[in-house]
């Protein structure tokens, strides 16, 4: 039974208001920007965003007013600097207040790992003595019950996303997908999330994927939707397909210093750009071609 559908349908059906959504689990690579833009176009509200580090997609979703809470280790613009929309939301409540539950990359990874194991928490020795547990109720200071001296230990509460959005190199219509390159917390998120939306550069026959089952990124029965979406990770890179568009991050940073600047950027690249084909046309053939990689076989 094919799960292939248009992006609009996938977001409509599987990301209702209030969802807990994991995205950007490969860190700065393979970020599902196209799917994030569709969430903005569909005016989703009260989302909780989950990710290790977010390279401007979280900022865009916050600026567009989709977000109530973020559980993450780092929210900014990796190469260009601070996240202006996140700053405005936290410092001034513009366009709406956002709660940030601060994690480290290890603790957000452990939170997802715990959820995928069906464990209520995982104990760790990171973050002790830091201020993060004072403000994040998902990081609980405790003592190690296996240690007679009652040594301190931190319990990281399991965090189960409702949906994980994953951009991959190739998938079939049934939800088998190959991803390679930096994994980040993708392996953990795949097991933690209730369901998965796959956006893929290429739709290929099932045989291509089952030939190398070690590279299949998720159990297909967890995949709710498969969307054919070439270029869906731009401006982030996709290993073997295209490089990171560093200039795009600089431009975003420069243009979004003010609310008005952000709104103009959002209109141009998201609201008035109906889909990824239009987005790539706006980007321009020459700029897009310049990012294309020599594709290593995998």
């Amino acid at each position, binding site marked *: 039974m094919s799960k292939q559908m248009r992006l609009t349908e996938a977001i409509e059906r599987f990301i209702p208001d209030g969802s807990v959504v994991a995205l950007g689990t490969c860190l700065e690579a393979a970020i599902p920007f196209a799917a994030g833009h569709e969430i903005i176009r569909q005016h989703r509200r009260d989302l909780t965003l989950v990710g290790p580090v977010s390279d401007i997609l979280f900022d865009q979703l916050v600026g567009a007013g989709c977000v109530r809470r973020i559980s993450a280790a780092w929210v900014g613009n990796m190469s260009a600097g601070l996240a202006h929309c996140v700053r405005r939301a936290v410092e001034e409540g513009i366009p709406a207040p956002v709660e940030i539950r601060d994690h480290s*990359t290890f603790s957000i990874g452990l939170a997802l790992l715990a959820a995928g194991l069906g464990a209520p928490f995982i104990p760790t020795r990171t973050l002790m003595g830091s201020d993060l547990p004072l403000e994040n109720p998902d990081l609980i200071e405790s003592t190690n019950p296996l240690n007679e001296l009652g040594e301190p230990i931190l319990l990281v509460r399991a965090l189960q996303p409702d949906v994980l959005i994953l951009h991959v190199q190739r998938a079939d219509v049934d939800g088998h997908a190959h991803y390679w390159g930096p994994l980040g917390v993708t392996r953990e998120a795949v097991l933690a999330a209730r369901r998965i939306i796959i956006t893929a550069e290429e739709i290929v026959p099932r045989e291509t994927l089952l030939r190398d089952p070690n590279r299949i990124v998720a159990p297909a029965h967890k995949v709710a939707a498969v969307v054919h979406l070439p270029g869906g990770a731009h401006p982030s890179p996709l290993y073997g397909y295209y490089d990171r568009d560093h200039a795009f991050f600089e431009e975003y940073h420069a243009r979004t210093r003010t609310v008005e600047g952000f709104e103009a950027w959002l209109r141009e690249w998201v609201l008035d750009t109906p889909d990824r084909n239009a987005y790539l046309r706006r980007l321009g053939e020459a700029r897009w071609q310049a990012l294309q990689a020599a594709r290593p076989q995998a």
Partner: protein
Amino acid sequence: MTFTPREMMVIAAAREIRDGEIVFVGIRLPLVAFVVAKQTHAPNAVGYFGSGLIRETLPATLLYTVSDPANVEGAAWAGSLVDVMGLLATGHVDVGFLGGAQVDRFGNLNTTRIGPARAPRMRLPGSGGAADIAAFAKRTVILMPHEPHRLVEEVDYITSPGYGTGDDWRAQVGLPGGGPSAIITTLGVLRFDEHGEAYLASYHPFTTPEEVRAHTGWDLRIAPNVAMTPPPTDAELQALRAYDPEGVWVGTP
């Protein structure tokens, strides 16, 4: 060769890496320090990256993020972030680099927020992997531009603990790693005494201990044997500039 304070800072940081060590490499200046070290005195240093990658050789082009395709190409391992953090947590990392907005005399770092929780003046990106490196690495090296509002009496938020309130604080709160071994700034190298308090160990060639003190937000002690930081060698400067010719991370001379 002439050099900038940022170049001096990065090169002094590179010297903290010993050959054969495992280094947790962040992006920006720590990345450049790792590159300089591998190109000069530490060719066998191994790099861990939060994206789940381990490298034994240098990436072919300048990285803008640790997840760039150039960092995957030729990587010696591409596992999960949790795997790499597990290796960190089990004591495999010799030295990790940290940066931030504020640091205090005990090497406690703030990368989360300026101002109080209810009325933050500036929301910063947060920990990333820095708090984990601060918890577990055998030693950490902090890189920061030397400005009085950065080297402060008290940080607004402890993202990555150093020596806390000093002495055996790390053992009391249960942090396994060794804590900071240096704060390297644009003006000098600070090291830590047996109580965990930072003092000026060396000042960069273009400054004086007094100038360093004047730019520090606390009453900085100066080592009796304080000396000038050895200036960059040609090999160090060449390695740095060859890797970042446009000054993306280090700036231009």
